[in-house]
């Protein structure tokens, strides 16, 4: 080896020795986890070796070229196989077991009657169909942008969940109404699920609720929920519940002593419990829920827990909050949204409830035949 070459190699080695810890430290400071730092370190080593190759003296022609050709194959074979073996792997048994259940063992679910076991079976089915690839649940699984998080899906009505599962194109939330995401949810579950799986998945999804004291995630500002809440408030959904009769259609009270819903700063009666004395803007989620469910002591406000489901109570609360804008969504914003194309789609979607129910029933019929 010539002196020039030797100096050249030493120079490159020094650069590599400096670059290796520098890359490690910089990537650490930037927040790269350890495996990524190793990856960058490997790249530094490869670049170093490659640069040695660049300035290597010209190769002599060999008499036994065949052996060198064979060696080239061997290097390629070993390097690529080692890369394949060295990268993260999974245990195929897990997918095999999933497939076994999906292709042969899934009828067992149909026999489950116990509600707790049914939910467990639903979790199994959820995993079998790999719903987690798109939906985040309990912090695990799909990217947020790919499909709605399902932590609070249990608050939705059974019909809504069925429709979202069997006829996903019926309604697409605003944030997912994008060309790439619009039809991302598979529309074949009425053909793929059998009755047992369907029952179990429904039980599992209905069981998913984050907290009984918190407004389900996103509902304070979700136009669909707010409009459903408005229908309850106005007595359209259930004629025996008509909030507007006392609080007025636009939140301006029409009954003496009824809470003025339009003013977020207005306080309630001094006679009422502590939380009611607070202005609306300071109400916690639980304050809203309790006021509707249990009523307000020593006032004419009755508890509506017998007539409304907890889910409906949250919907009414979401609508009421828009009257004063206490939770971010105002009537003006809502109106502006309903003027948009997506808003018009929502109005039309809600109007077609009977038609939608008919379609879901028909799709459920297909499941019975699977």
């Amino acid at each position: 080896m010539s002196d020039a070459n030797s100096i050249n190699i030493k120079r490159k080695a020094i650069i590599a020795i400096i670059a290796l810890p520098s890359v490690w430290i910089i990537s650490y400071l930037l927040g790269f986890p350890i495996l990524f730092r190793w990856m960058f370190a490997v790249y530094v080593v490869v670049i170093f070796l490659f640069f040695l190759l660049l300035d290597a003296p010209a190769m002599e022609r060999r008499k036994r070229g065949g052996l060198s050709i064979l060696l080239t194959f061997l290097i390629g074979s070993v390097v690529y196989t080692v890369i394949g073996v060295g990268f993260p792997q999974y245990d195929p048994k897990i997918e095999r077991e999933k497939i076994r259940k999906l292709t042969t063992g899934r009828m067992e679910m149909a026999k489950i009657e116990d509600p707790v076991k049914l939910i467990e079976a639903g979790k199994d089915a959820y995993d079998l169909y790999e719903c987690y690839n798109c939906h985040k649940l309990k912090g695990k699984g799909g990217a947020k942008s790919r499909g709605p998080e399902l932590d609070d899906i249990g608050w939705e009505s059974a019909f809504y969940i069925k429709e979202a599962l069997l006829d996903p194109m019926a309604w697409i939330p605003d944030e997912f109404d994008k060309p790439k995401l619009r039809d991302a949810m598979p529309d074949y579950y009425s053909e793929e699920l059998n009755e047992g799986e369907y029952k179990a998945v429904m039980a599992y999804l209905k069981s998913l609720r984050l907290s009984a004291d918190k407004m389900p995630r996103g509902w304070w500002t979700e136009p669909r929920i707010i409009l459903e809440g408005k229908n309850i408030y106005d007595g359209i959904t259930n004629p025996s519940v008509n909030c507007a009769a006392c609080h007025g259609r636009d939140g301006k009270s029409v009954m003496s002593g009824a809470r003025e819903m339009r003013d977020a700063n207005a306080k309630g009666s001094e006679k009422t419990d502590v939380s009611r004395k607070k202005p609306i803007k300071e109400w916690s989620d639980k304050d809203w829920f309790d006021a509707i469910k249990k009523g307000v002591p020593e006032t004419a406000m009755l508890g509506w827990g017998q007539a409304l489901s907890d889910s409906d109570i949250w919907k009414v609360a979401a609508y009421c909050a828009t009257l004063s804008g206490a939770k971010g969504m105002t009537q003006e914003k809502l109106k502006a949204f309903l003027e948009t194309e997506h808003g018009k789609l929502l109005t039309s979607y809600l109007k077609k409830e009977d038609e939608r129910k008919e379609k879901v029933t028909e799709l459920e019929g297909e499941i019975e035949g699977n």
Partner: protein
Amino acid sequence: MKIKNISLVSVFTSLLVLGLTISAYAAAQSDIPEAEFTFPYIGNRVVIWLISEVHLLFGAFILGTPIFIVVCEYIGMRTKDMRYERLAKEITKVTLLCYAFTVLFGGMFAMFLFALYPKLSAYLLIKFFPIAVGVYSILWVTESTLMYLYWYTWDTLGARKKGLHLAMGIGVNISGFLTMAAINSVASFMLTPPKPVEGATLWQLVNNATWIPLILHRLLGNVCFGGFIAAMIAGYMSIISKTKEDRAFYDWQGFVGTLIGMAFLLPIPIMGYIYSLEIYKYGAELGVYQMSDRLSMFYEINGILTGVLFVGANYYIWLSMKRITGAERFKSIIKIGFIVAFISNAIWVIPRHFIATMILEPGMGYANEAEMMASAELPSHLAFLSLMPAKNIAVTLIILVTLLNYILYWRALKKGEIVWGKIDAMADYVLIFQSFTVIWLMAFMGAVRELNRKFYHVYLHIKDYTVDAFSPTLAYSSVLTTIITAIFFALLSFAIWLMLHKEVAPSK
């Protein structure tokens, strides 16, 4: 081996396969039970995997090289540079033997598929009978006949009727392209059948969501493959060449082959992206399975190997420039380009997390999600590096570096003088290694396309009830891909030696 004998073997095997297909179609009319036979030791899937991949690699070769050959013959005719004529002729000789290999492996593939997966074979045959027996057979016979005629008339038509000879070559390419398009309809149908399948017309079955993207992807891939194989042949021949003239010729051939291979490699990442987008549009869950779930690490390997191809091609330019006088002045700028290429490749392969599935599964070496996230998942402020915009920028940079190096090469040529045959001997092995990489990558990604169907033979339509209905690990697939590549390489090397060793004999 005489080319006449090769032609006879090809014709005989083609007829045998055709007869077998028609008999199978007749049998498929009755209810066929699932096969009870399991291939010893390796299982049915591996048998089909091995045979079909080797068949596909030869198929890619015999579809890609005729494009290359005709273009070379045309340039030779226009420029009167006889090197193009020699290049076209020698590659054609190898291609002819590869036709026979393609037919043999195609026949084996059909026979094993009928025997090991009779129900699926019957289903596909009934659905695609006019394509499989009518269109495909006619096209295949046309292509083979034209190819042998193309060869036999090369000298007899001579320079006077070169146009007619070229027209025959174009005919080979057209029929080859249509043959590929016909059989791609079945392959793409299995992944993206029309919705609903029942009642779909033959055209709807053929023109399914990924048919055109698959054709375009394979067309580019095949020409790229042909270019790299031509370069590999040059590498082989240069090593065994005895004279300066031959060495100069194969040095030149290696450069031309690599240039064509690279020219068609450049748009492949974009074409692959379009193909994946169509798969995603057809069924987002397929796209997710591919890019984020069980096949995600396969794409890591794809990124690394494509990076190797680009760096390898640029290294070859580096070696090529060494034989141009006065090209030393570009050394520093090319070195900077290499650093850019390596950094871009590192960004290209950065995954969201270093686990092989979307969510943590038992046996992956982490006790819980938090532990995995701490050591193997990008924190949210760095997550952009795993998304498409970052990848697109990285790929664009690698492509730009490659283009820049070719521009520098031409600039060096303008002022300097090239001495063909004086290239560093290392270049021969670079050419062989590059083609090894292309073959390995092609076999590997072909498997990914098949595995994308998960536990279906025909997605959402025919479930796979066999024990092999799962995605094998990356390690398993890599080992198998290496075996496939070795088989293909061994046969191709044999073909090159058999057909061309006399070309460099000292007595010639």
